[in-house]
Every structure is written in C-alpha cells, then in structure tokens.
C-alpha cells in the first residue's frame, strides 16, 4: 500500500501534527490584522509583538508597588491562586470524602451545595471584603470558594463509584475504617479527585483575573485594568495571551499528573 519509507512516514506524521494548527494560528493572526486595519485603536499583530518583546525583556523590574514588571504580576496572581486553591483542596477533598462515604452528610450538605454552587464567584467578593477587611485575603477567598465545588463534588462522586467488588474485599478482610479509606477509597477515588482538581484550577485561574480587577493591588488582573486606564491596548492583548498560556500550562500539568493516577489507563 504505502511506499513511503519510515523517515518519510515520520515526516508525514509530524507535518500532519503541525500544519493544521499552524494554518489555524495563521488565520487567527490574519483576522486580527484585518480587525486592526479597520479599527485603529487595536494594535496590529506586529506592533503587539514588538511591545511583547519589550515587555518581556525585563519582566522583573520593581519601581515601587504601583509599577512592577509583568513577571511579578503573574507571580502574584499565581500565588493567590495557589493559596486559595490549596485551601479549597485541603477542605474540599476531605469534605467530598465524607459526603460520598456517609449518607447522612450527603443528605445534610447536598441542598447547601446545590444552592451555592451556581453562584457566580464574584458575588462572594463583597462578603470576603466585609469579613476579611482587606483586598488580598478577599481575592484569595473568592478563589477558594469558586474552586472548592468541583473538588467536593468530584471526590464525593468518586467515592460512591468505588466498585462494590473492592468494598466486598474490604468487608471480607474486615478492614478498619482507616484502612478502607487509605487502602481502598483513596486510591480508587484518586482519578476522580484529580478531575476535580483539574476543573478547580481552571475555574480558579478564570476567576483570579476578574477578582483582581476589582480588588486592585498587584496581579495580572489588576495589571490589565491598569493598562486599560493607560489605554495601552497592546499590553492588554499580551496579557490575554499570557493568561491563556498559563491556564493551558496548568491544565496540561494537571492532566499529566492525573494520568499517573489512572490505573485503568496504565
């Protein structure tokens, strides 16, 4: 059938893997160029690129709290996400376990969760500002509350989906509740937990930009707002790309991590 030799085969595979995305990207830039040609306030792709090179030539300068490099802003946002998300994992995953394992807690907490989960994360910001008095912890609070739901829910679902066979093994062996949790529920649920974690980090990264726009200080969200006030549209577009790329990286990282815990896929 195919007369291609192995090298040519590989070349073909690489081409098939790179050409379509390249075309997509090219079209995107073309549309962008057309839009910027008709709307003078939108900078061209070329101008944006030049601006980006300049911006990233010194990402970590520090000229006082109101003028820091984009690198510091990104790190500040990542730190907030890490803290809020970490706290949510610390509370959400065990809570999910309890809800999944004990009917009573499920029945007790299910109505509250169903009620609070659909609330827009930013609706929690005033409460955070009110209770915590400061912008910084309030932003973390918003991350916490928005990323906790996927972790609670996925963990709880995972626990209820543990195959009855495994539970029968636990019963025949007379495992203690502690051993049931550590030796059976935890490993059996881990793929579900990882799904929750992955969804949660996506939400957290989504929300941080909006939260920081409202709270101010330092962070990629506030940086965008700041550049809007400076009317530096190129910087705003760069920030959009930065947010997108970091979100993508977080997603890829966690997908890779999740794969390591998936026993069926190994």
């Amino acid at each position, binding site marked *: 059938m195919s007369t291609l030799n192995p090298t040519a085969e590989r070349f073909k595979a690489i081409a098939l893997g790179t050409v379509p995305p390249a075309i997509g990207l090219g079209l995107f830039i073309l549309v962008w160029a057309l839009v910027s040609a008709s709307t003078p306030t939108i900078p061209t792709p070329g101008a944006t690129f030049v601006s980006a090179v300049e911006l990233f030539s010194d990402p970590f300068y520090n000229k006082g709290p109101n003028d820091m490099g984009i690198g510091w802003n990104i790190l500040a946002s990542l730190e907030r996400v890490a803290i809020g998300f970490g706290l949510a994992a610390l509370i959400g995953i065990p809570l999910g376990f309890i809800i999944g394992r004990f009917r009573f807690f499920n029945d007790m907490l299910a109505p509250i969760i169903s009620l609070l989960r659909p609330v827009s994360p930013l609706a929690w910001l005033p409460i955070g500002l009110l209770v915590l008095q400061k912008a910084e912890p309030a932003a973390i609070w918003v991350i916490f509350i928005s990323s906790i739901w996927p972790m609670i829910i996925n963990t709880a679902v995972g626990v209820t989906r543990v195959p009855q066979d495994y539970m*029968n093994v636990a*019963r025949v062996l007379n495992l203690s509740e502690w051993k049931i949790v550590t030796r059976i529920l935890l490993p059996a649920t881990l793929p579900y937990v990882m799904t929750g974690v992955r969804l949660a980090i996506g939400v957290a990264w989504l929300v941080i930009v909006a939260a920081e726009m409202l709270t101010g200080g330092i962070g990629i969200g506030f940086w965008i707002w700041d550049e809007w006030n400076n009317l530096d549209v190129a910087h705003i577009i760069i920030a959009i790309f930065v947010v997108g790329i970091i979100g993508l990286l977080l997603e890829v990282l966690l997908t890779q991590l999740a794969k390591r815990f998936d026993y069926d896929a190994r």
Partner: protein
Amino acid sequence: MNAYIQLDNVGMQFNTKRGPFIALREVDLHIQKGEFVSIIGHSGCGKSTVLNLVAGLLDATSGTLLCAGREIRGPGPDRAVVFQNHSLLPWLTCTGNVLLAVEQVFGDKESKAQMLERAHAALELVHLTHANDKFPHEISGGMKQRVGIARALAMEPKALLMDEPFGALDALTRAHLQDELMSICAATQSTVIMVTHDVDEAVLLSDRIVMMTNGPSATVGEILHVELPRPRERLQLADDAAYNHYRHEVLTFLYEKHHKTAA
C-alpha cells in the same frame, strides 16, 4: 455430629423495586471440616446468594447460619472469598494484594518480614513468584485468578468460599488451576465451598455436589456424594465408570428433573 458450616432452614428474600423477591427457601446444608462441596444449578437459581450468605456479605431473612458453632454475623477473614472476577486492587502489586490480606489476619502477631514471607509463599503456591511485583493489569486473566486464590489461601482461612473461580478462564488454564487447587486442598485440608456451573469441574473436585432447584424460591434439590479416591487424575477418570456415573447423575438432575425453560 456438629457440622463445621451449618445452614438450617435458611431463606433469603430481596426487597426489590417491584416488591419482595424470594430467592431461597428452606435451604439446609451441613458441611464437615475439610470437606470440598460444590454448588451447582442453573443460572440465577441462587448459588451466589448461598455463598454470600456463608461469607456474611448478605444477611439471611430467616433460618440460622453457623460457622464453627457460632452464628455468622457479617464477613470475616476466617471465611476467605475467591471472587468470580478476581477483585484484585489495581493499585497494589500481586504481593501487595496478598499482603493486605495477610496483614489483616497476622498483623498483630507477626513482623513485617514474616508477613511478606507469607505473601510470597502464597504466591509461590500458585506458581506466581515471577509476578510478585507486577500490577494486576500486567498479568493475564488466569494469573489474576491465581492471585485471588493466593490471597484467600494466605489468610489460612477456616473455610474457602469460591464463586465460579474459573468461570472466566479458557479450558486449558481452567484444567491447570483445578489440578493446582486439588493439590493445595490436599495439602492444607481446607474446607471449601465452590459455586460452579461446570459438571466436570464439580465431579472432579468435590466430595459432595449440592444441586439446586431453579429459582425463584430455589432450594437444595439433591446432594450427590462423590466417592472417587484421591488423588484424582483427570485423564484416568475420563474412562472411569464411577466418574461417568456421577457426571450422568448431575446432568440428569440439571437437564431432566430441573430443566430450565428459557425465561
């Protein structure tokens, strides 16, 4: 004489969405220590239910179940179960799976090294030493089933309960494992209850064959004593008159007296 496992007038009723379903009624079964008993019957008659009642995974709705003179209340490591679908934990190696069971039984008496020794010995018994550190997804179906048997044997249970342990295996692997099981039972003098739907398997392995009537409300139909001398050789038995007589008895029960009309 007191039997080791004793079921008296046992009934089992499941409460389903469409009302109560009587699976078993008036099941009487006395099993002596060291005996190998098979339960055979058509699909859905309640063989697994009987086994799960003895295992303690199900609670009978009526009657009494005793093991070693004591009422069966819930499962316990004294009655090890070999599950039909092996039920190995995929995140543990073969050794890990066996060790989990060993730790439950010998955890407070023995050192870690001794318990690891036991786990390895059990795997050696089923000729799986080479797979000690493999994960379940890395070994074949027959090997998984053998790990399941090793896990049960490693607990040194008073009774071994097996639900169609070889059901999912090909004929060659099945024959091989049957032979292994026979020699293990001869060596350990285990009390075994095995659910099967394979007539040859039942006759080859059992001291007694419990034949169940069709459900619903199934019960013990007949009990056949298989008085073939041990050790039993499958090749010799193939032309053995007594063996074929027992085989015929079971087949007659299943296909003449209690023929299953297509549901």
